[in-house]
């Protein structure tokens, strides 16, 4: 009878827990890492790609077209919000679609970009619904929202399958999130600049990822800044070639051969 209380999502166990929700969160802590750092003049997101391989056709992400990223973990939710997702990719796609619809509805009604917290709240309302109504599986997805709005400038939020959300200066979801968070706790400083945040994110990422070397085939990267000339937030999701260039600049690029390691 051990499975009495985890067969349905909406039934409490005698200890007052919802097991299916906890399992969903557990699923996320096995997913690829997503890391976010809030800086005073921007927000930085990085994610570990899990679906890789020599035969995977990534030409869509490599050539021009689209807005960058390979469409696995980094999504432009609105012109002022980038989402980084960890968990079941198909669930995430559905949530991303919902988020984009909500953001466009807000734009249509108020002629104004949706405030970041409002968008996070709307997604959490949806996620929470699946913890309460029977017969449905919760979304196995955590999301990091990197956004800008005139109310609170740059913001970083995290939402989980239970429908809770919270704001962060730096946080991490997915595999090894404990290690990453303790690293971030040590290294994060208030009033950090975007450049410093970028190198912090890459440093932490290189330590938490399973593979010893960073490269564009394993990494997704995005930065949200403010464009002073256009007077609007500027979201940039890096293309594979741009990620490699960034890694070279940061001195974290993969070595060409093992010659150096031997010597």
């Amino acid at each position, binding site marked *: 009878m051990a499975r009495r209380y985890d067969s349905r999502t909406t039934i409490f166990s005698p200890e007052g827990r919802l097991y299916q929700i906890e399992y969903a969160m557990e699923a996320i802590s096995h997913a690829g890492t997503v890391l976010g750092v809030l800086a005073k003049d921007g927000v930085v997101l990085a994610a570990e790609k899990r679906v890789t391989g020599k035969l995977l056709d990534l030409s869509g992400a490599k050539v021009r077209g689209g807005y960058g990223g390979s469409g696995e973990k980094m999504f432009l939710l609105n012109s002022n919000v980038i989402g980084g997702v960890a968990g079941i990719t198909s669930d995430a796609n559905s949530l991303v679609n919902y988020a984009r619809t909500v953001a466009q509805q807000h734009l249509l*009604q*108020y*002629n*104004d970009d949706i*405030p970041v*917290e*409002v968008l996070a*709240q709307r997604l959490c309302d949806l996620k929470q619904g699946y913890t309460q109504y029977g017969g449905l599986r919760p979304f196995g997805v955590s999301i990091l929202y990197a956004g800008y*709005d*005139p*109310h609170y400038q740059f913001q970083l939020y995290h939402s989980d399958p239970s429908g809770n959300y919270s704001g962060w200066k730096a946080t991490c979801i997915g595999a090894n999130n404990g290690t990453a968070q303790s690293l971030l706790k040590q290294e994060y400083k208030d009033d950090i600049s975007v450049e410093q945040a970028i190198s912090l994110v890459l440093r932490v990422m290189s330590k938490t990822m399973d593979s010893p070397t960073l490269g564009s085939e394993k990494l997704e990267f995005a930065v949200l800044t403010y464009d002073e000339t256009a007077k609007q937030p500027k979201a940039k999701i890096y293309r594979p070639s741009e990620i490699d260039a960034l890694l070279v600049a940061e001195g974290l690029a993969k070595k060409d051969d093992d010659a150096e390691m031997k010597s």
Partner: protein
Amino acid sequence: METSFALTGKGYVIIAADTTAARSIVKMKVDEDKIKELGTHLLMAYSGEPGDTVQFAEYVERNIRLYQIRNLYPLRPPAAASWIRRSLAQSLRSRNPYSVNLLLGGYDQAENKPNLYWIDYLGSVVEVPFAAHGYGSYFALSLLDRYHDPEAPLEEGLATLKRCLDEVAKRLVVSPSKYMVKVVDKDGVREVEI
């Protein structure tokens, strides 16, 4: 006849509206407040078909309040103007459209600047430095063209408004006897005597 004015200045918006409630040729009341406080930093002067005006103003007021309760912060003036415009445009295409003209003035606390919007019953919205509705607009707009200064302190802004009110009193056959004047700035909304 119904008249309302509004002008911006350095960090504020002034809105003035006459206080007469008339039916046909009869004045029913001379102390009607036709400037609604939609939020701590948002004012809306309404004029048009009696009945429609109050109904629509209350509808707007409650919806803007609802947004604030739901989303923790109030709608900023540009977003409020867009929402109101949309409501009027939807109403215009219904069986019984609202016949309401509005002046929406607010202080944007996120960007620290005043905003003024001229809105009419056809669903037009324009952001303007100064505006007027009603017969008074025919006399006041030229004065505002000449004397309005977006960097003027509040006293100068009120003096410019006074010129408009005096001109209307002098030249308009059916000029209103009294006006309500409200100001919105970084400290919120307040009524001023003129």
